[in-house]
């Protein structure tokens, strides 16, 4: 038995000597994830849809600011929906791919983050081409850049939520259900709840609380950032003025950017933690 052990150790030494980590395995996984996503024509269709919509908005309105206002509604509703639903469905369909990866010398975190990078890059490029390029051509102002930035950040955060929805349930139908609920909550339900509470507590000064509430929803953060850019805050009365005062300041802008980042990082971190312990 002892002799066998010594022999075994000798062998281990040779095995370890060969061990070397491939450079950036995460990027490799991401590369193949992008290949896989591009095989599916959906992302291309999404890009063309955005391109057609943005071009037509800018051509219909003489004032690029009005065009951007119309575009904003698309970004706040359609973009989260497409990002979360497509990412969820695609990740469920990639289980085979991940199973294959897991039998290779790749860490779970590299596999998961590689998938995220691939999905995020594909959707961000689609958005960049579909909306970024027209905005640059027709508007080219700082508000245009903010609009594109908001769209990119929203894409990232909804892809994070999609990954969370996927790891929360093994069942595809349930996962897509969770994804749709998240979307519904962020884009529609949340505003309704805020409005209701404002109405119910209208006797109290709620403006500051409303600023706080905006942080709990990435869509609201993007919406406020954009409305301030487009000078629509003036239409919102005292709350608008307060928003302007807070979000328009450098600190406020910085804090809302950080909050958006949190909406990207936290769901993804939670999802990665679950994935680390998940049976495939």
């Amino acid at each position, binding site marked *: 038995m002892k002799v066998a052990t010594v022999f075994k150790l000798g062998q281990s030494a040779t095995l370890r000597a060969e061990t070397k980590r491939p450079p950036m395995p995460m990027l490799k*996984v991401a590369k193949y994830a992008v290949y896989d996503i591009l095989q599916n024509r959906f992302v291309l269709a999404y890009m063309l849809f955005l391109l057609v919509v943005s071009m037509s908005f800018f051509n219909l309105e003489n004032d690029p600011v009005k065009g951007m206002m119309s575009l904003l509604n698309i970004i706040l509703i359609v973009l989260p929906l497409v990002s979360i639903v497509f990412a969820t469905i695609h990740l469920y369909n990639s289980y085979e791919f991940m199973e294959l990866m897991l039998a290779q010398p790749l860490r779970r975190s590299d596999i998961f983050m590689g998938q995220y990078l691939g999905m995020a890059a594909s959707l961000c490029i689609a958005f960049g081409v579909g909306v970024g390029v027209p905005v640059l051509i027709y508007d080219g102002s700082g508000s245009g850049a903010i609009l594109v930035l908001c769209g990119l950040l929203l894409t990232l955060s909804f892809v994070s939520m999609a990954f969370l929805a996927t790891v929360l349930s093994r069942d595809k139908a349930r996962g897509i259900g969770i994804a749709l609920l998240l979307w519904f909550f962020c884009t529609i339900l949340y505003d309704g709840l805020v409005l209701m509470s404002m109405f119910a507590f209208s006797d109290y000064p709620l403006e500051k609380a409303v600023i706080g509430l905006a942080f709990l929803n990435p869509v609201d953060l993007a919406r406020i950032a954009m409305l301030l850019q487009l000078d629509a805050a003036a239409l919102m009365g005292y709350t608008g003025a307060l928003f302007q005062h807070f979000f328009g300041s450098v600190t406020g802008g910085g804090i809302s950017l950080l909050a958006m980042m949190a909406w990207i990082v936290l769901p993804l971190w939670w999802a990665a933690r679950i994935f680390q312990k998940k049976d495939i």
Partner: protein
Amino acid sequence: MLHVQQLSKTFGKIQVLSQLNIYVERGQAVAIIGPNGSGKTTLIKSILGMVVPEEGTILFDGKPVGLDAQYRRFIGYMPQIGRYPDNMQVGQLFDMMRDLRQAAPEGLDEELIHAYRLPDIYHKTMRTLSGGTRQKVSAALAFLFDAPVMILDEPTAGLDPLSAEILKEKVGREKQQNKLFLITSHIMSDLEELATDVLYLVEGKVVFLKSMQALRTETGEERLGKAIAKIMEQQRH
């Protein structure tokens, strides 16, 4: 080489593996047998790190698995049902695996790729392949990296007789290279040809881990199927 200690795993309320202990070395070809649901695939998936056990450790070459994925460099795995990205072409799949494994071309073992004439179907997508052809792809992939540990889950199920024979001959040759084989199968005659040792699992517990030789002398039976039946019989009394 591979040391499984006190491994336990439950799926929901079902205890799939309970306090499993095994130790196997290079040069052995271990047949893992047991009734359906006895935990064979779960054991294999735990060794590969696909299933995360609740308790116990798996030492691969003295190092616990789960800390680092690099040990999988030394494992070739042929799954029970090979599931691959649907839209990927066969050739692309092989290219991707080479790329991911960072394998040097001279270290590759392409014998099965040629024996199964896979280059002829490199342009086909995985979606269009039949179950048996997928199995051939899985087998060729498992052996491609000349890994010292080979894990084959139901390797011959779904293969036509000729292809199964090619695979068995391949295993026979590789066994001589001081490799460790873990093979699950329900086909006793296949295992009889290939295995040096038998691991019998029932309800996630090890009933026995014995060499073929010991099994034959103890039971006085030449055929593996009969020998196991006899042991099960003895245990009932």
